[in-house]
């Protein structure tokens, strides 16, 4: 009896330890984009490490922080001082037909496809919280 009680205690402690380890791993804070500019986002913000991308793009900020004028990409101009949502509105507009959501999706996913690395499927970026 005493033996089986101790064994059950051992199992409880073991499961608690493994469980704590698992959930602290699963629930670890991933660095994400803050979807504040969206009215009612259906998905959690995309997992994104700014530092990693600065490193991967050799400090060329303009790859993402681009500048378009009259639908043309202006080379070597960058826009770090702006929010994405300063130019991209939620719905397509005459002056900028690329809405915010599609801007993110196209920029991230197309680059990941072109480079053959990085997440490309919905849930690989929008990891459940």
């Amino acid at each position, binding site marked *: 009896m005493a033996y089986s009680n101790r064994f059950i205690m051992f199992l409880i402690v073991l499961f608690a330890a493994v469980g704590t380890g698992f959930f602290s791993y699963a629930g670890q804070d991933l660095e994400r984009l803050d979807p504040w500019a969206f009215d009612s986002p259906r998905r959690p913000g995309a997992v994104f490490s700014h530092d990693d991308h600065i490193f991967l793009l050799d400090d060329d900020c303009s790859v993402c922080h681009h500048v378009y004028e009259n639908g043309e990409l202006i080379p070597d101009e960058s826009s770090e001082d702006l929010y994405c949502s300063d130019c991209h509105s939620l719905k397509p507009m005459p002056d900028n037909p690329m809405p915010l959501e599609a801007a993110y999706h196209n920029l991230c996913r197309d680059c990941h496809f072109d*480079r053959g690395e*990085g997440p490309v499927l919905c849930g690989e970026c929008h990891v459940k919280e």
Partner: protein
Amino acid sequence: MNSFIAFIMGPMVWISVIIFLGGLIFKLVGILGAVRQKEPYIYSYVTLKHSLRSIGAWLIPFFPRSARLSPVYYGISYLFHILLFLVPLFLASHIVLINEAFQISWPALNDSVADVLTLGVIAALIFFAVRRIRVPEVKYLTGAMDYLLILVVLLPFLTGFLAYHQWVAYQWITVIHILSGELMLIIIPFSRFSHMLNAPLTRAYMGSEFGHVRQARDW
């Protein structure tokens, strides 16, 4: 892996849609040609009015007599066919992809609602499988291909459900989701799924034969 995903999300979608639509058109031309060759007099009494009247009557829930004779099977089958189209076509994640490809968009189902409806589709498919095992007169007509086809429909819905929840092996589940959806489209013209074309044609023929020639109802 990304180049493989790019292929199944890009060219493979076009290949699937072309085989699906092209296959059905090819089949339609074949059927109409065969009728012209073997029983051309059918064309003399098929009318649009009687065709649409019959199709319409069979679209009204529990209106045809045979539907009322087996209400459970008919009811589940009726809902299943609606959900089969409604859920994938009005799923937010699918609309996002279509919007980015073609700049067109339409209202989406709430994700939680779509989640429950997906379970409804899966439950209906399980019902169809059990029915084929349990009901003697259906079992008699059932072959391995019938179970395989249930699996072909089950896969995209099951993997879609799993992918949405991101429980296990997200990347693989999603790859199987995309591939199984394309497989289902490709299989339609070459399997009994082609009843999406044959069913309205049958109703057009029956509706005209009964409605126009015999002056009777066919529902």
